[in-house]
């Protein structure tokens, strides 16, 4: 027998209470795992999209930090295209729209032709033909969601479009999106001549210089616009920030609620065992050891709950990813770091919840505790 045997057998003394507490901690940790992985996944899919497009710098209007920033004059792109380090500029207009019976989908209007299209792989059909309006292409997931094939007609707002082709993209958000040439998008959204993003690509090995030059130009002539590197855009996205904030808030709530749950359970078990703790002190256990025993019980409880929570969180995420709301829009980021974080949260709430009961237990006077019933 070791010291741990004593703590373990205490936890197993009231299995129902232990299991219920595990469930409480598990739900909290599952929420942390699910929300954090989705928030990170959200950020990751957008980062992937910019990387796949080969965009070095994204220009938007700073005045609005909404997920879909306000439109501005597409003519601005011409000015940046003239900067020597800049290889190409592509304007794009994006919006979220409900299409036919399907839930909200991302709809892009992209300068056509342009470098944005280069990374897409045509699976079926053809690209929209230059000069022909009311044609679009569907990402493979979008085609699946809408139940459309090449040649079908898709109604967007009051316009009818023909599906010219279906493509695959390395970026999940694009696979779940509808893409049309920019002029069509401007007409559908009633924003002629406007874009809400400019994507810039620099000449190879002039990337840094190009970024500096564009930033200098914005600073000098176009206050109110910002230039973000592809990696930053995802992080600055308000949606990503909200998701990240939500996941942090939930994690804290889970931590606090979990810590109270653990504290309650462990404190109850300390009260119930007053006489036993008196016995341990009487036969020579030091206060430190009694305290360690209670803390170990509390930490073991919360770590076990953490493991249950991780499993629960994984299952939740896998189910959520398949819902119509999220299918094709994001993929949870389930890195090992996340599980490490979840276990740290569990450990934290075990220590937080166990400290007070452990202190109470260690303060008992052995003589009095022995008289307790």
């Amino acid at each position, binding site marked *: *027998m*070791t*010291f741990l*045997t*004593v703590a373990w*057998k*205490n936890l*197993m*003394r009231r299995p129902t209470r232990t299991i219920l507490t595990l469930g409480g901690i598990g739900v909290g940790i599952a929420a942390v795992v699910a929300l954090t992985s989705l928030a990170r996944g959200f950020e990751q899919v957008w980062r992937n999209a910019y990387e796949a497009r080969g965009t070095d710098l994204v220009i938007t209007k700073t005045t609005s930090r909404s997920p879909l920033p306000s439109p501005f004059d597409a003519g601005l792109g011409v000015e940046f295209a003239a900067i020597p380090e800049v290889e190409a500029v592509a304007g794009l207009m994006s919006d979220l729209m409900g299409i036919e019976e399907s839930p909200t989908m991302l709809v892009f209007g992209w300068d056509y032709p342009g470098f944005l299209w280069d990374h897409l792989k045509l699976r079926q059909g053809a690209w929209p033909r230059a000069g022909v309006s009311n044609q679009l292409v569907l990402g493979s997931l979008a085609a699946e969601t809408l139940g459309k094939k090449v040649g079908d007609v898709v109604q967007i707002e009051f316009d009818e479009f023909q599906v010219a082709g279906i493509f695959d993209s390395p970026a999940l958000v694009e696979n779940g999106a509808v893409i049309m040439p920019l002029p069509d998008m401007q007409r559908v959204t009633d924003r002629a001549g406007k874009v809400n993003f400019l994507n810039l690509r620099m000449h190879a090995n002039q990337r840094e210089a190009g970024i500096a030059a564009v930033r200098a130009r914005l600073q000098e002539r176009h206050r109110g616009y910002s230039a973000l590197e592809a990696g930053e855009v995802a992080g600055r996205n308000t949606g990503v920030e909200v998701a990240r904030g939500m996941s942090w808030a939930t994690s804290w709530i889970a931590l606090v609620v979990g810590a109270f749950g653990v504290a309650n359970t462990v404190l109850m078990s300390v009260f119930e065992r007053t*006489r*036993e703790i008196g*016995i*341990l*002190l*009487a*036969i*020579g*256990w*030091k*206060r430190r*050891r009694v305290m360690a025993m209670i803390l170990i019980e509390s930490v073991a409880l919360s770590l076990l709950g953490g493991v249950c929570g991780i499993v629960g969180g994984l299952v939740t995420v896998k189910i959520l990813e398949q819902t119509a709301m999220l299918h094709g829009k994001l993929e949870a980021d389930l890195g090992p770091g996340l599980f490490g974080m979840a276990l740290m949260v569990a450990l934290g709430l075990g220590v937080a919840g166990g400290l007070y009961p452990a202190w109470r237990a260690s303060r008992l*006077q*052995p*003589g009095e505790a*022995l008289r307790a019933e």
Partner: protein
Amino acid sequence: MQVRGVTRLFDEGRVEALRGVDLDIAEGETLAVIGPSGCGKSTLLQMLGALDQPTAGEVRFAGRSLSGMRDLAGFRAREIGFIFQSFHLIPTLTALENVQVPMLECGGTRASRRKRGEELLASVGLTERLNHLPSKLSGGERQRVAVARSLANRPRLLLADEPTGNLDTTNATRIIDLLLEVHREFGTALVVVTHDPGVAVRVGRAVRMKDGRVILELETAPGEGGR
């Protein structure tokens, strides 16, 4: 062990459990403390075992004052073995595990603790009951586990608080036999609090307490506890 002028007040002085008790217990001696309930016997035992601190007066063990001792838990673990009326075993642990609980405070390997636990239980005749929980043991068996536990760290002083109070005559006799045997074999000093005159007679030297005072010292002849 020397007890000098020990007073213990409870409830802000309204209850006087002990009023100036003086007592000497020589190394390896046996002593029975008798008296009616509420006379302060158990409080005195708690003073001897450093479970409680006197309001006034002093308890010395081997020349050292307990009140000046920083590591009272360590003192209890090494020098004192406790036996209680209601056994006070840990209900979630088996007999063998209960006996090992005090050893956790005194180091040793897992194997050595187990071996010592098995030896101790064998010496109280419980070889067949090592892996039983206290709830599966009879009262007499539980008290024998408690005796084995009290000997875990080879203490110099055994303190037994009404050790036979919850036992029938046969088992009571057996426990007293066991305690006296331990005393003879290891030279362990033994203080037994009891209200059973029969027990007091067997132990040998006895003091009678009343209202928190030692009122009479009896040398019951011949006393199996004498050396």
